[in-house]
């Protein structure tokens, strides 16, 4: 039930932020509309401080995942092509279907299912090559860089807030 409640709220915020709109997302891709970036960066700014404060007081644990340069770079490029062509990412496509966007329902959802099936099909072949290129350990960024956690947080927060201030300064 909790999951359902969270996801309804997630969908609600995405919708209110305008991120389920095709034009807003393609506007971001064309660098004419920075709504999506503003939404994502504010989520990270608030989420990062909140999560690390909760973690500091022992209420939550982090779940660093293993990764590899191969899977992240190649996967990211494929994701970007799909994102730009369709105008939705997996989260916003579901929100757009809820809003009543037919393009998200027919192209987006069906395309995602086909793509997921294709990946499951080729998984045994790519597992040993592409997905294994440049393996990264399951550690967080501060652990990886061997820096103090709070220094990294302050630097990243300052960078993100500074970026948003610059966006507003240039009227984007």
């Amino acid at each position, binding site marked *: 039930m*909790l*999951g*359902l*409640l*969270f*996801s*309804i*709220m*997630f*969908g*609600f*915020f*995405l*919708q*209110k*932020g*305008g*991120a389920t709109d095709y034009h807003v997302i393609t506007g971001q891709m064309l660098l004419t509309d920075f*709504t*999506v970036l*503003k*939404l*994502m*960066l*504010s*989520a*990270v*700014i*608030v*989420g*990062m401080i*909140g*999560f690390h404060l*909760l973690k500091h007081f022992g*209420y*939550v*644990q982090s*779940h660093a995942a293993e990764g590899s340069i191969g899977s992240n770079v190649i996967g990211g490029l494929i994701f970007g092509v799909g994102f730009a062509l369709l105008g939705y990412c*997996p*989260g916003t496509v*579901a*929100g757009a*279907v*809820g*809003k*009543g966007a*037919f393009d998200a329902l027919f192209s987006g*959802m069906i395309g*995602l*299912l086909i793509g*997921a*099936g294709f*990946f*499951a*099909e080729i*998984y*045994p072949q790519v*597992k040993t090559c592409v997905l294994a290129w440049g393996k990264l350990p399951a550690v967080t960024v501060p652990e990886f860089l061997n820096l103090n956690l709070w220094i990294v947080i302050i630097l990243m927060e300052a960078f993100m807030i500074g970026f*948003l201030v610059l966006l507003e300064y240039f009227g984007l």
Partner: protein
Amino acid sequence: MFEFFTQAQWSPYVAGAGIGVLSCLAFLLSDRPIGCSTAFVKARGLIGKAIDPVRVSSKEYYLEIVPRVDWDWRNIVGFWCPVGRWLHEWAWDQWFDPTLACQYHHGLLFFCRRDRYRDGTIPDHRCVREERTMLSRSIKLQCPDRARAALQYYVWILSPEGWCY
């Protein structure tokens, strides 16, 4: 306060901050991040399983990502779920335009050559034809996005308000 919720759009900063808080709550209360990409993979696995269970269960990928309805799945369902929809419609009443849905409904009725109104009266045929042309024109004019009008109409006929019509 209520006006804030009925705004069609919020500042992306406010909505983003909301997602940030939500993400913390998700970690705090259920030790999981929010997201829904994996759900599509699992959904695909479930569809495959329904068609050919042997083939899917033999796939290495589905041994690692087990296709089942779980947390990730609920995220997608949550986006679709009628409660979310109603919550959103309540907040964003501009989405649904009763006049438009009604016009679409009448347009359909005339298009299907239903010669009798709901109250039993039989309309004048010549008038019906003119009215039909007029209605289809007004639907085209008022709603260039006819798919949306149609969807609004179907949502509307499924709602209690539509039943009572």
